[in-house]
Structure formats: C-alpha cells, structure tokens
C-alpha cells in the first residue's frame, strides 16, 4: 500500500477515527486504526476505521493511491504523529510488517498489527432521515447535559430518541432534572415512528464531530433485526453505536402543564449571579430563590457559615414564590436554553419547575424544556 495525502486532511481524519479507540482494548488489534487505500465507486479513497464492539467510526477521504492495500497500525500513535507532522504532503508506504510515514524531512516507521484479526465493522443500518448538523449538535448538547452518569440505572445514561413523522424528540433525565428538545427533520418515510435509547456521551461526541458536514443522516436499525444499532453519517464520516436496553421512564407525565407563577429573568445576569452566590453554597447545599413582583433575590449559605445574597430585576406573573435548587443543575438548565431571557414556570416550591427560553412570539411554545426538581428549603 502506498499513497500521498495532505497533512491536515490526514490529521483530521485520524483524530476523528481515534475517538472511537477503546481506552482498554481487550484484544490488541482493537487499539489499531485500519487504513484502507483503494478505488471506491470510481474515486481513489483512503478509508480509516476504528471499532471497540460498541462504537465504530469510519471516515473516507479522497487521495492519490499509488498502490492499493490495507494495513492496521496503533491508532493512538498514528494520531500523535499526524498531529505533530509539518504542514506538507504525507506519504504512507506499507510493506508487510512495517509502515513508513514520511512528511518533509520527518520519517516514522511503525509496526503493523495483523489485519486478518481485525473484526468486521457493523454494517450501517438503512438511512431513516436527515437533519442539519448544527441544529442536531445544538439539540443534542441541550439534552445530553441532563443524562445520568451513574451506572446504577443504565437506561438513564442514554438519550431517548423518538421519531414521529417529521418530529424528532430527544429526552434525557438523571432523576434530578429532565431535558426535552423537539426538532423537525426530514424522514425518508413521512409516516414513520420509532424510538431508540442512545448512550448520551457517544451521542454528544458524535453530534459535535459531525458538524463539519452540512447534514447528518441518521440510520436506525429495525427493532426486529436483532441487535439495536444507530448510525450517523455526514461529511464523509460515519459512526455506529450500540443502543441501550431498558425501559426509559415515561417522562411526559412528569411535565406539569399548569403553573402558579411564571418568572422571566435576563439569562446572562441570572447565570452570573447564580455563579457568584453559589460560591458559598457547599456541595449539596441549596441556592435559594425568592421571586416577587419585579425582583428576584438569590441567597446561599446558612447562619453557621458564609452567606451570600444578590438581587436582580425580574418579571413575575402570579403568586410570589420561594424555591431552592442545586446551583449546578440550575446553571446547566440556564446554559442550555437558546434565548437571552429565561422563563421559569413554577407550581409550588416542592414541585418541579420548568426552565425554557422566552419564545420569540407569545403564541409559539418553546421547543426546549428543562425540568428541574427543587431541593428542600433549609430553614
């Protein structure tokens, strides 16, 4: 195998593929990136692949192939090397047990891993629909923030993806907060409906890394075809991940639909104030909020310790309310909304509150909702 490729193109492709390399490979070949230089559909391409039995990643770039072939080399090492090469044309020449990477006056010789031992990457399921990559990235990051990180309830470490015609709904919860985002997409079949539970971390990484292309195609395997899998493709990059098992909580019933008070606060000011006041809130001690007409008072700390208080302007419709939150969860929610004005809707101080962005016009409802459970007001 022998080919030439520009350093930036190669470094990007290798870095992206290396993300799916397992941290602790149970079989040595899994630590490798598979390089495949061949002619595919009339163009000469280099395909790079990695796989850890959960997540697979494959990227293809156009190159000049001098001699087609396939080789497997340590992914981490290749990523380190390509990242540090000078900005010139890279020549890769594989010959049996050795791969030579030359660029400018630098030359590296790497050992190869046995290609024949490398597992076959799972086939990409049939494309189910597509969505703009930036919209998808924004939506996924808004939702993934609320996913659980604790393996006690594995289904909570996932993002629930619901497809209903041209509406895509993403939801995740760690039992303290719940984030839901609805967006429109272009399904292959307008009448389709499907659900999947995708590992949140993988989904967040994937959505972020696919913003190089304009569109992301989503491919969901049929429920009947055995093992659940979801694939994403965009800008020459494709990745698949195994779906999570388990019943996702019936979250829609958790979302309240009537409220006693609705407050609106400038988001940036509010976040700054939360960060400042919560400096005195030790871990797990609450940040207390008092909403009254025209005014929001934030407080933290108790009589025995340091205390902080700050007042902000805010609009309030309905009853005055006092409520307390974990400040980190509150900040996550405020950070996720895509409006300059945060709208907080309350029923009572012991019931979950909803944070949304103030919609552009009063008629439309916000497509992102962040439900947050209050903590007890410590007296």
């Amino acid at each position, binding site marked *: 195998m022998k080919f030439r490729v520009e350093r930036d193109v190669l470094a990007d492709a290798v870095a992206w593929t290396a993300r799916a390399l397992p941290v602790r490979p149970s079989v040595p070949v899994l630590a490798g990136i598979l390089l495949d230089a061949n002619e595919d559909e009339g163009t000469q391409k280099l395909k790079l692949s990695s796989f850890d039995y959960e997540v697979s990643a494959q990227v293809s770039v156009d190159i000049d192939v001098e001699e087609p072939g396939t080789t497997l080399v340590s992914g981490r090492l290749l990523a380190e090397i390509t990242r540090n090469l000078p900005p010139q044309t890279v020549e890769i020449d594989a010959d049996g047990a050795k791969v030579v990477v030359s660029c400018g006056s630098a030359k590296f010789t790497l050992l190869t891993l046995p290609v024949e031992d490398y597992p076959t990457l799972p086939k990409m399921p049939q494309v189910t629909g597509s969505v703009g990559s930036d919209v998808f990235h924004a939506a996924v990051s808004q939702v993934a923030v609320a996913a659980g990180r604790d393996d006690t309830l594995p289904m909570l470490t996932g993002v629930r993806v619901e497809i209903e015609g041209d509406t895509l709904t993403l939801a995740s919860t760690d039992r303290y907060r719940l984030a839901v985002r609805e967006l429109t997409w272009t399904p292959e079949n307008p009448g389709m409906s499907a659900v999947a539970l995708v590992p949140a971390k993988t989904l967040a990484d994937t959505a972020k890394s696919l913003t190089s292309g304009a569109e992301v195609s989503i491919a969901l395997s049929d429920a009947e075809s055995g093992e659940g899998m979801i694939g994403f493709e965009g800008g020459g990059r494709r990745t698949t991940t195994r779906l999570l098992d388990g019943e996702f909580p019936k979250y829609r019933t958790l979302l309240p639909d009537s409220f006693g008070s609705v407050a609106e606060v400038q988001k940036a000011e509010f976040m700054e104030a939360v960060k400042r006041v919560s400096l005195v809130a030790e871990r797990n001690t609450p940040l207390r909020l008092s909403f009254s007409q025209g005014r929001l008072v934030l407080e933290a700390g108790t009589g025995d310790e340091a205390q902080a208080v700050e007042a902000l302007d805010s609009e309030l419709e309905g009853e005055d309310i006092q409520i307390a939150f974990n400040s980190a969860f509150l900040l996550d929610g405020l950070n996720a909304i895509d409006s300059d004005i945060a709208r907080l809707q309350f029923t009572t101080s012991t019931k*979950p509150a909803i944070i949304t962005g103030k919609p552009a016009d009063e008629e439309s409802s916000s497509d992102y909702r962040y439900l947050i459970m209050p903590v007890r007001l410590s007296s």
Partner: protein
Amino acid sequence: MRLVIARCSVDYVGRLTAHLPLAPRLILMKADGSVSVHADDRAFKPLNWMNPPCTVRESEEDGTHLWTVTHGKSGEKLILRIEEFLHDSSHELGADPGLQKDGVEAHLQELLADHITTLGEGYTLIRREYPTAIGPVDILCRDAEGGTVAVELKRRGDIDGVEQLTRYLELLNRDPALKPVRGVFAAQEIKPQARVLAGDRDIDCVTLDYDELRGIEPDVPRLF
C-alpha cells in the same frame, strides 16, 4: 487497656531522636504491651509510640514520674516525663471480634435475593449460596427465558471478583442440569478494568444501589 491523660513530655531515643515538649496528652497502654501518645487530633495516628514487645519501667526523678518504655529487641526507648496525672483508668476489653468489612456484602446478597428482579424483569431466585466444589456462588437464579444465571456480589467490583465468577461459571457449566449458565457481576461500584474483563468473558455487569435496595429514601428530592 490503660488510659492516662497527663501533662507530659516525651523523648524517643533510638535510630532517631524526637522530642515532644510538655503538654497534656493521652497515653494508651494496651494489653499487647504497646504504648502510644496521642494529641487531640489525627484520628488514629499517635504522636509517638512503641510497638510490642516492650517493657515499661516506672521511676521517679525530682518529683516527676518517669516511664521508660524499652523495645525488647532493638533497645530503642520512649521516655515519658509526667508532671501531672489528669486521668488514669484501666479497662478489660477482652478479645475483639474483629472488623467486619463484609457485613454489607452479606446484606447485599440478602437484599438482592429478595429483589431479584433488580437484575431484570422475570428473574426468579434458585437459591442463595449455591454450593459448588470450590465454594458457594452468591446467588443462582433464572432469567425471564429460564436460563440459569450465576451472580457474584461485591461491594467494590474488582478483577478478582470477575476471576472468581469465571471459575464458578466454568464449574457450573459442566452440570448438564444447569448449563448454559450465564454470569452477572453485581457490585456497588465496578472498576473499569473489571468491566473490560467481564465484557471480554461475556459476563454482564450490574451496578447496585444499596440505599435503593434497602428502601432508604434519598436526601435530595427526585423527579421520580
């Protein structure tokens, strides 16, 4: 166990010399012969001490009590000059039953057996402590499809636990009445290495919430 609270100064004479100036301190003289001098901090760690075997010689010098603790082998000395006794009492503690670190593990086994569906819907218990030639398996149960499942329970899930379960599985899978037997490694916390090894051997990992199994309500309110 003799507990003495006294204003004293302490000198250590041996491979190194150390001096503690006059101050009130707790002196513990244990049944094994050891002597340790504690300040009012540092939990279990004494300021200075002498390990057994050692002998204590009490004498008096210009009105101050002098205790000389001499190590039986090395001859190193801990010398306590006591100005004033504030407290002095002795108690017979007898033999200690020892620290039970596995109390939680036994309780987890009991709880998981009672709530066997934590592992999955339709699971049924065969028995706890299922005997094999190399020791009992923590829990043997059946999954929803009727397949046999061997469960190894740990507080902290380490590589050793996976190895242990692997040995049990190998043995259990020789029993035609039980096989095929699948393994589940259940722990409150599973180390990444153990997770990799378990995955490689097709053993499922389950993280257990002890409080949830015990039915203890969390301090922090939750959505559901």
